[in-house]
């Protein structure tokens, strides 16, 4: 008898569920639901959680997780139900193939939105998969221009692009150091090569001579052959497009070989971990981060992050935090977690997050993104200048004007 009852209830539930999909009467459904009913909304997050940059991946994930935990604590109502957000965190191993696989996995898991991926190299192959499924994706760290140049309406990023970051660091090198000859090295990844290309363009435009590009891979630990060659060519500055795990041996071996040039990096190697891996060799290095320095993120975010994880964010956590909040905010505005319904809200969103005011242009890039230049001073990354709208502004000045 009991089983029969259960079956009939199940059947009734199925019929009800089937009906509500077809009949355009959602208010009836929500009206029938008890007041305390909650709906699970899955949000995906992808970053490398294994390998040389796992710590950055975890940092990104922590940012997104914090946003979701705060949203759950706030008991947000979406579509009349209390939204219960869950973070589906995946590891793409920094591998383009795995990136695409993981994207499919998230699509199959029916996530409402995705924060990620960390790397451009995995974000780009994953983007058509999300696009086909119509799921909005916001990366807080993928800076390769190509990502938002594919015409995908659902692809966003709340961080600057290489074609802004490259000019920023290159303008800084060209104006501050006044070098005659610059060497460019990259790790053959979409990110590293893209960034080095942008730096090359800007340097050439500023009439700085550039050596033929040298290349490694994103696993290179022995840079001696490349560096030895560079030493013979005597550049005044070296720019490397790549991540920390390869940038640290590069600068360390460069100093060992007696190269005196200024070493500069993009955001992939702009973190304290560099000092741990390369020690004193890092003194005086220049690097850029898309956006504003972690310490310039909103105090509310920094305090909450510190309280939750008992650690400070490394680089992108404020951006993934904002990315997750942007998704949630758009869902709130549309009163729906259906990607097709809240995507238009996301496109025209005006939101002030941990990294300042955010809105997107037609491509899905953040409007007016800033780039910050750092210098390594006695083992600490010290913000020296901010690049905004094609101009370098000294950091102190920027903070003063921003505070106004």
């Amino acid at each position, binding site marked *: 008898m009991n089983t029969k009852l259960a079956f009939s209830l199940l059947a009734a539930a199925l019929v009800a569920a089937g009906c509500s999909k077809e009949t355009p009467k959602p208010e009836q459904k929500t009206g029938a639901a008890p007041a305390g009913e909650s709906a699970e909304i899955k949000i995906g997050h992808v970053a490398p959680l294994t390998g040389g940059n796992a710590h950055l991946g975890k940092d990104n994930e922590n940012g997104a997780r914090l946003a979701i935990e705060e949203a759950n604590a706030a008991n947000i109502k979406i579509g009349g139900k209390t939204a219960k957000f869950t973070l589906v965190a995946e590891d793409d191993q920094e591998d383009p193939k795995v990136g695409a696989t993981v994207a499919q996995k998230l699509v199959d898991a029916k996530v409402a939105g995705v924060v990620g991926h960390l790397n451009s190299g995995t974000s780009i192959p994953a983007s058509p998969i999300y696009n086909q499924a119509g799921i909005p994706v916001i990366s807080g760290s993928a800076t390769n221009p190509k990502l938002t140049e594919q015409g995908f309406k659902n692809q966003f990023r709340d961080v600057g692009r290489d074609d802004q970051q490259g000019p920023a660091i290159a303008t800084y090198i060209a104006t501050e150091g006044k070098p005659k000859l610059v060497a460019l090295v990259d790790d053959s990844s979409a990110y590293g090569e893209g960034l080095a290309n942008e730096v090359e363009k800007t340097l050439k435009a500023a009439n700085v001579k550039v050596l033929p590009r040298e*290349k490694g891979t994103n696993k290179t630990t022995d840079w001696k052959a490349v560096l030895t060659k560079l030493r013979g060519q005597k550049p005044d500055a070296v720019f490397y497009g790549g991540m920390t795990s390869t940038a640290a041996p590069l600068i360390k071996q460069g100093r060992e070989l007696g190269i005196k040039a200024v070493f500069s990096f993009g955001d992939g190697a702009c973190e304290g971990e560099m000092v741990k891996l390369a020690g004193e060799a890092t003194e005086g290095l220049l690097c850029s981060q898309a956006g504003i320095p972690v310490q310039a993120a909103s105090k509310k975010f920094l305090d909450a992050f510190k309280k939750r994880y008992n650690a400070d964010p490394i680089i992108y956590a404020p951006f993934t935090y904002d990315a997750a909040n942007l998704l949630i905010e758009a869902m709130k505005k549309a009163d729906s977690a259906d990607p097709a319904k809240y995507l238009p809200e996301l496109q025209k969103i005006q939101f002030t997050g941990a990294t300042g005011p955010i809105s997107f242009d037609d491509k899905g890039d953040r409007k007016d993104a800033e780039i910050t230049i750092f210098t390594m001073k006695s083992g600490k990354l010290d913000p020296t200048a901010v690049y905004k709208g094609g101009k370098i502004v000294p950091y102190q000045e920027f903070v003063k004007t921003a505070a106004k």
Partner: protein
Amino acid sequence: MDTFLQQIINGLTAGSVYAVVALGYTMVYGIIQLINFAHGEVVMIGAMVAFTVINALVPYGLPPLAIVLIGAGCAVPICMLVGYGMEKLAYRPLRHAPRLAPLITAIGVSIILQHVALLIWSRNVLAFPQIIPSRTYMVGGAAITTIQIAILAICFGLMAALAILIYRTPLGTAMRATAQNQQVAGLMGIDINRVIAATFVIGAGLGAVAGVLYGTYYGLAQYTMGSILGLKAFSAAVLGGIGNIPGAMLGGVLLGIVEALGAGYIGDFTDLCQYGWLAGSISACDGGGHFVLFGSNYQDVFAFLVLILVLVFRPSGLLGERVGDRA
């Protein structure tokens, strides 16, 4: 010219480490015709153990050299134990099985060791403590650091010691006899199991030292470091003639130099803009530009290119004998 000399020094240093690792491959192959793919992982464990010990000792203010020696002193016996255990548990039960079985087992052992290391030491890149102050000396315009000198001295010292062990001691004689014919060696009163175990233990000990040297040289250690290092050392062993001990030494050093020169010069040779008849048709060349076909990111390819060339033109390696009937 100083660039060329510097590339040779770089190559020689990396090559001598390859040579010491290659010895582990070649010794085991020489005696039981097994390619021990887990040998790279033994090297990695050597580096990791030394990393842990050195990190633990740094706060006590011992002299840096003593700390490194203690680190290596812990890494060597632990790796020897790993080598012994691997032979006893994984390979000995399969000694008379078809040759594919121990080969696949070796790959399995390699995966197990890698993941054990992942569990113990985490997935992060570990910064090897740089406690020995590295002085740089200039020789004919090329820089050579104290660490490089130490690596060269230790590697060549180890190779000499191994050569004496193999060719001048009773254990070495027993090893060579076992390599020639296990059954007959057994009939002559040689304890085959003991000799094979000794081969694994010595190879693992060498691997441990190589791991410590590699870690100190590049300043990095990670649980995946053994795989590419192992593959290169294996290529070096094949280049020299697998099973042949002087061959592994020669192969390692040669491979290191080929790699350094290859990575250092490939970009120059494949810059199509320097070839006048081509430059005209490539727009990137205009105004002193460059169009480089292959860059130094192909560094790792050289090891395997060499491996393929050797296998095609001289399958038994540079110093190898013909062993057609063995396979």
